[in-house]
């Protein structure tokens, strides 16, 4: 008991220490936003069996980030435009449903990352800065970024809640949704745009190459213990927030990149739940 109390008070002191730093306050807020936004979109992508599409959008966003570095202007808005354009393009290619669609997507994704790396090498600051956007960095979130992230994350989470029924229907059974007269194409484009927004929200803390993990892994962990779509959504968001915040805190003390730390935490939660659920099943059978 005493040990627990002293651990908690140590944690509180440590958090207070963290909050002395302005950059850490901003990093924690950005982590909270991405922790909420990523699983909100991810649940529909996973249900649609498009878990890896966020990864592709991240690749495309790399070009946007690099363009920002070359032009020496705010990379966040430029990445937003690139990611949304890319997401709409991806959805239109997919909707054609042709055999060659997969190859077209691969070319788009690798073109995004290839173009981004080459562009960034021409930036005045060189390509060193690019790494921060690929894998996250706790020291770089500005107040301006936070405003953008907050607006985008609010749009993502509110849309996922308000239009959740329609997004669920389309993700769960696209053909039934079409027969019901739902605007399937528009809903798919909306989901693509929300995914692009999430990629941008992730830029500072998680990094565009790792955001897909935060869209998918908390949801994958939640579905191990949930019995409904709604509870998967709620638990997924909870896991997203917890791993994002704890990832940022640990990366501060351990001096590790926050994106990787957050993703490893999320995978850790998944692994623990997987073991607990399976042990539970074995015990239950006996």
């Amino acid at each position: 008991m005493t040990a627990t109390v002293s651990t908690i008070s140590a944690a509180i002191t440590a958090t207070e220490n963290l909050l002395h730093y302005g950059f850490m306050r901003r990093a924690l807020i950005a982590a909270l936003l991405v922790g909420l936004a990523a699983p909100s979109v991810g649940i529909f992508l996973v249900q649609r069996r498009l878990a890896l599409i966020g990864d592709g959008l991240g690749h495309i966003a790399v070009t946007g980030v690099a363009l920002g570095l070359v032009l020496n202007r705010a990379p966040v808005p430029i990445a937003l435009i690139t990611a949304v354009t890319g997401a709409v393009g991806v959805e239109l290619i997919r909707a054609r449903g042709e055999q060659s669609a997969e190859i077209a997507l691969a070319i788009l994704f690798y073109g995004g990352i290839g173009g981004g790396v080459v562009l960034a090498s021409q930036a005045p600051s060189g390509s060193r800065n690019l790494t921060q956007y690929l894998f996250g960095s706790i020291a770089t979130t500005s107040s301006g970024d936070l405003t953008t992230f907050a607006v985008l994350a609010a749009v993502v989470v509110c849309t996922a809640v308000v239009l959740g029924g329609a997004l669920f229907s389309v993700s769960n059974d696209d053909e039934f949704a079409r027969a019901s007269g739902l605007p399937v194409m528009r809903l798919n484009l909306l989901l693509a745009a929300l995914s692009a927004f999430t990629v941008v929200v992730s830029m500072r803390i998680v990094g565009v190459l790792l955001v897909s993990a935060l869209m998918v892994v908390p949801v994958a962990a939640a579905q191990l213990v949930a019995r409904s779509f709604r509870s998967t959504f709620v638990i997924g968001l909870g896991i997203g927030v917890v791993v994002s915040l704890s990832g940022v805190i640990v990366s501060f003390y351990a001096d590790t990149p926050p994106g990787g730390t957050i993703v490893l935490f999320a995978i850790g939660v998944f692994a623990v739940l997987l073991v607990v659920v399976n042990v539970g099943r074995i015990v239950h059978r006996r």
Partner: protein
Amino acid sequence: MSEASVIEVRDGQFGYRGQVAVRAGLQIDAGEFVALLGPNGSGKTTLLKGMLGLVDRLAGAVELFGQPLREFRDRSLIGYVPQRQTAAGPIPVTVRELVRSGRLAHKGLIKRRSRLDDAAVAEAIDAVGLGDKAREPVSTLSGGQQRRALMARALAGGATVLLLDEPLAGVDQANQEALADALGVLVDRDTAVTVVVVLHELGPLEPLVTRAVCLDAGAVRFDGPLATAPAALLHLGHDHDPHGGDPHAGRPNRPRIGLVP
């Protein structure tokens, strides 16, 4: 109004990527129970999807309730039950959540769920006999129960026309009968539901079917009362009877038509 046409296909040609898979013209009136029968690849599923605008229409016209398909907005009147081996995806979904998605056409996308919506969902779940499973994840249900859940989803919006694609395929006898019972109740109601069902085998639905549309190689070979359908067309490539006897002999104990041994 009992004879009002609910679905009309005029000189329809349907298919995929510009290739015609089926040609058909037919008019389905309110209260009919139409079976689209035929062997694999005969075009029966394509025809059903063509009625809903889910495949390419390469020629002809489709009207629902007297309106051209494209202009028809009251989609909640149409309940579609697609052929699915499973109604479950990677994320757990309860029967109630699945059935609620059938309510969207009626409720609208943004409006909050009302008590009326909840009642309609509960009624649809009860109608297919899954009342005690409403809170269960769909993935824990048997294949037959999952089909019934899909039927409840189609009913939840208040559909007066049901289009079912192979609802009996891969479903055990008990669930086939439960499904037939649920359909039987629907067609016996005062406001009878019109049913169009794609079938491989008539099974326990046989007593309900009022009209058979037999397809082969992408064309309608017979369209009329089930009792007058030529036996050869009802044998559907499953149950080849070398004597070609009366397809209704031995009913009701032995539904011979297309029965998989």
